[in-house]
């Protein structure tokens, strides 16, 4: 490609690189600030004016995973040498650990629901997209628009009937209910994206396989699926980002057992006032799985987002 007449000159590359680099710097600053705040002490986090240089502490992370209470005024001082490092951090601020916080549980819930719904959505989306791409489905265009239209409904608008429905079926605050719900919300996106990919895979491959004696189903599994990997991977990223971060349904439909982390993180409070370091620590840890997932599937991301349907 670099031999082509259209290759940008080194100077163009340099300038482009600088501008994009500058944008990256600006856009990453708030993110870095979040990560840094996770390692600040409570006082440094609300220091006025803001502190760029500070002494790092694990206080935020300890607070994130614990519920603490102030040491009652009449309690005798304790020996700090026999304490674990995290007990000591807490004790030095005049607090004791009452019990572990719910962050661990909520994180686990997010993992099960986020990845579970993404997997289910990929499965259903792939087979449906294949059918729409290859077969004559009656009212195909209408069905496709119907599927897309389900994404237009504000979540709040359907939350009441869904809540009542779940209640009657005993699905409220359960993994199963939340996985089904997120799958349904994401299906529109995944069917649309994946159909684009399926359209791009030449039909000739399957036809050759069919002539070789494969059934349609075998051809789908053994010929089409391996070629659709890129599309599936990139679609999975988008589905996961949504399911992982969803807030409105989570806050209205779950209360304990199946509550995910997004409603939990903004509300972490300390022994008095908002605990910004713990909020930041929670946000940082919560970003890690999606980030790793995205970085692993990075090379598919760009290719995937072509929404193939647009151009062949």
């Amino acid at each position: 490609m670099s031999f082509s007449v259209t290759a940008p000159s080194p100077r163009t590359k340099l300038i482009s690189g600088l501008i994009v680099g500058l944008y990256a710097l600006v856009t990453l600053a708030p993110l870095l600030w979040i990560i840094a705040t996770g390692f600040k002490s409570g006082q440094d986090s609300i220091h006025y004016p803001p502190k760029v240089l500070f002494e790092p502490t694990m206080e935020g992370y300890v607070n994130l995973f614990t519920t603490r209470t102030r040491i009652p005024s009449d309690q005798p001082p304790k020996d700090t040498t026999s304490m674990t490092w995290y007990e000591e951090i807490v004790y030095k601020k005049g607090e004791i650990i009452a019990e572990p916080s719910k962050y661990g549980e909520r994180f686990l819930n997010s993992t099960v629901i986020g990845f579970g719904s993404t997997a289910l959505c990929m499965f259903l989306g792939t087979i449906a997209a294949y059918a729409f791409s290859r077969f004559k489905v009656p009212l195909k265009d209408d069905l496709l628009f119907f599927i897309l239209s389900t994404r237009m409904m504000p979540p709040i608008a359907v939350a009441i009937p869904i809540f009542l429905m779940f209640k009657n079926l005993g699905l409220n605050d359960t993994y199963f209910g939340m996985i089904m719900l997120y799958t349904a919300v994401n299906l529109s996106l995944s069917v649309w994206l994946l159909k684009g990919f399926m359209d791009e895979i030449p039909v000739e491959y399957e036809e050759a396989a069919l002539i070789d004696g494969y059934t349609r189903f075998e051809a789908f599994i053994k010929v089409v699926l391996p070629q659709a990997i890129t599309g599936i991977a990139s679609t999975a990223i988008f589905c996961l980002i949504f399911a992982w971060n969803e807030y409105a349904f989570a806050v209205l439909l779950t209360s304990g057992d199946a509550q995910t982390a997004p409603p939990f993180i903004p509300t972490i409070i300390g022994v008095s006032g908002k605990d910004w370091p713990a909020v930041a620590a929670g946000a940082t840890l919560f970003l890690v799985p999606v980030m790793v997932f995205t970085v692993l599937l990075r090379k598919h991301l760009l290719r995937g987002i072509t929404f193939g349907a647009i151009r062949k």
Partner: protein
Amino acid sequence: MLKLLVNKLALKTPRGVSKHVRGLSDKKLAWLFVSPTIILLLAINIFPLLWTIYLSFTNYRVNRPNRDVKWIDLRNYERILSDSDIWQTMQATAHFLVSTLVIQVLIGFTLAFLINKKFKGNDLLTTLIVLPMMLSPAVVGNFWTFLYQPQIGLFNYAISFFSGVDASSFSMIGDVHLAPWAIVIVDTWMWTPFVMLICLAGLRSIPDSIYEAAECDRASQWRQFWTITIPMVLPFLMLAVLFRGIENFKMFDLVVQLTGGGPGSLTTLSSIDLKREAFEKWKTGYSSAYAVILFVTVFGLASIYVKALNKVKDR
């Protein structure tokens, strides 16, 4: 890695299953593949929607279990459409929608255009730029209240550092003129990468041969940009606008955490208003009518838009 997994899956598919499915005709297979999706969507999207439509004609309130549910025809709709507050929230929503779309398209496209110059390290930078959109909007909104604080926040501090304006002299969330832009800035920060990715995909899908041909015809760079690049990327851009538009029309979590709808009702977007009616006042019937109105609006706009998109695509 994933490829291996799928191949394994292909080999491992039990003989019994494939044998069973083997006998299916294309038509049956089509139904088998499509029906789970349709059933799930019917159960979790369409059924609640129909229920919402039914409730919109009643005076039902979830928090008044002892009261009779009465059919009240179009009264809910009349009340909503004659309420001036609703138009105010619609205006706020429109302002948010239009400004985020315009700004994100401009920045997103520019970034994609520059990244497509394939300078060294563009892959790494792309990955870094995408990071904000992986955060939870609720957490982002919440954290930006912190960044926007005039005294202790990074945003005002940074602005004051570069412009010399006193950091405490302006308040992004509290000022009536700045607040509508405060939410636009955060949404732009978070979602410009999405638009950028789609534009990048569009740019990369343009075959070099077209530019080469243009080069042979001595077309200027500027002309190439307007006659090749823009028209070829347009369908992608429009798709990005469609998806962002639908998402921002529904915007709730980020803004509710960031401003709570204030100052006054300046950033009370439709979804926030709807949530108050539905889950704070518990006016179930009334808010169902509200929801239907919103849905019809977005559905109408989207179908016009999709028609336009298809036209551009087919060109």
